[in-house]
């Protein structure tokens, strides 16, 4: 059974590392998602093209292979990343690519009349984006972002294979030390589930606030995750329904 000493030296810090990796990767992912998402709606074809190439490449790679590559192969190109930052970058870049599709889709779903009103009022492109389009697109982005955030949080377990001491790493260490596997892996699964639950609760609050900001009620949903497609991929199926403010 897990000794209390092991618990305090490996497991608790491991939980903290998991949370840290989730937060850092989510922050990087958000920057990438908005940067690439906006670039894919750019008026210059070259910007759209380059952003599209980024999206296809990072959506096509496996996060685990990318992480391995950043950890083992990138140093040969002269870039040595600490394990944790290799993990954070791989996760942030991959999930940021998924997120860019959410940003692009939600911006495209803002009613054209809203954009035209902005043009009629002589707003600059940047003003239109900041004052008209993003505030209306944001509430649409929150539920798919929730799914992505949970996917990303689940993805953080991968950093354990590049020697970052997160909670999965602590669990593997305990298996090697004691051969007691049942309690530790069960505990791990429950902990990840609790994290996912907390993320969903937090994002629900965010969604309620975002919708209240443009005078809407949130939809009622069952289950702990929103039921739209995770990773924003199947989101596209019905997305650009130019409904504007519904």
């Amino acid at each position: 059974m897990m000794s209390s000493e092991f618990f305090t030296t490996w497991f608790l810090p491991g939980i903290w590392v998991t949370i840290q990796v989730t937060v850092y990767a989510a922050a990087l992912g958000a920057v990438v998602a908005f940067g690439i998402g906006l670039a894919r709606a750019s008026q210059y074809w070259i910007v759209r093209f380059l952003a599209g190439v980024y999206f296809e490449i990072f959506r096509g790679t496996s996060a685990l292979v990318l992480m391995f590559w950043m950890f083992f192969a990138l140093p040969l190109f002269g870039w040595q990343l600490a394990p944790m930052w290799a993990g954070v970058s791989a996760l942030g870049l991959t999930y940021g690519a998924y997120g860019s599709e959410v940003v692009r889709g939600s911006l495209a779903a803002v009613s054209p009349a809203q954009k035209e009103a902005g043009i009629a009022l002589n707003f600059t492109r940047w003003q239109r984006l900041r004052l008209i389009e993003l505030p209306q697109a944001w509430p649409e982005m929150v539920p798919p972002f929730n799914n992505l955030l949970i996917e990303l949080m689940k993805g953080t377990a991968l950093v354990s294979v590049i020697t970052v001491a997160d909670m999965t790493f602590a669990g593997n260490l305990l298996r090697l030390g004691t051969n007691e596997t049942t309690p530790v892996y069960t505990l791990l699964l429950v902990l990840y589930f609790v994290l996912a639950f907390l993320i969903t609760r937090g994002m629900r609050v965010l969604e309620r606030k975002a919708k209240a900001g443009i005078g809407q009620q949130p939809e009622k949903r069952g289950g702990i995750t929103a039921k739209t497609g995770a990773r924003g991929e199947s989101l596209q199926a019905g997305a650009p329904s130019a409904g504007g403010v519904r």
Partner: protein
Amino acid sequence: MNWDWQVVDDFMPRFWDGVLVTLQALAIGTLISFALGLVWALAQRSPLVWVRWPVTAVTEFIRNTPLLVQLFFLFYVVPNFGPSMSPLTTGIVGLGLHYSTYTAEVYRAGIEGVPAGQWEAATALSLSRSRTWRAVILPQAIRRVVPPLGNYVVAMLKDSPMIATIGAFDMLGEAQAFSNETFTTEALTVVGVAFIVIAYPASLLIRALERRLVR
């Protein structure tokens, strides 16, 4: 930077072995997830609360926990009280089980997308319950679910290298073993590129399917 094509050449035979294992895991994992997902989706619509409720709880739990930890659980914990399986078999079962909870959601959305009038028409024609499902509801639901299911197959492809962590020799497993033996990293790059080369045409195919099937 020192890139050596000779190393790439040496890796190729093992690379193809790895591709075969990855595709095999993907194919069987897909079959499991499609079949099991349908079971979950139908069970979640069961009129019996003691069927519906536990199935919903289990699928939510599986969907919200990492595949990596589930693979460890299947590989290290399950043999304590159940069958012990080879790394590849464990990986296939893990992939299939994990993604079945996603495909269940796809089926659920597909079934709910069938207009209520279709159910009423089936009742009016006094079709039996199984006939209603087989002849009316599922044929209409399947059109809606093919593109999202395809997306999950691509997602599964990208998660399949995780089975290397429990010792299966898929593309990543072969690359790791090769890199460790020869102290090179070209193999990892080759595998990374291979994933893009497989995943990109697959996602193009799904987008084409989507345009054809969804109206």
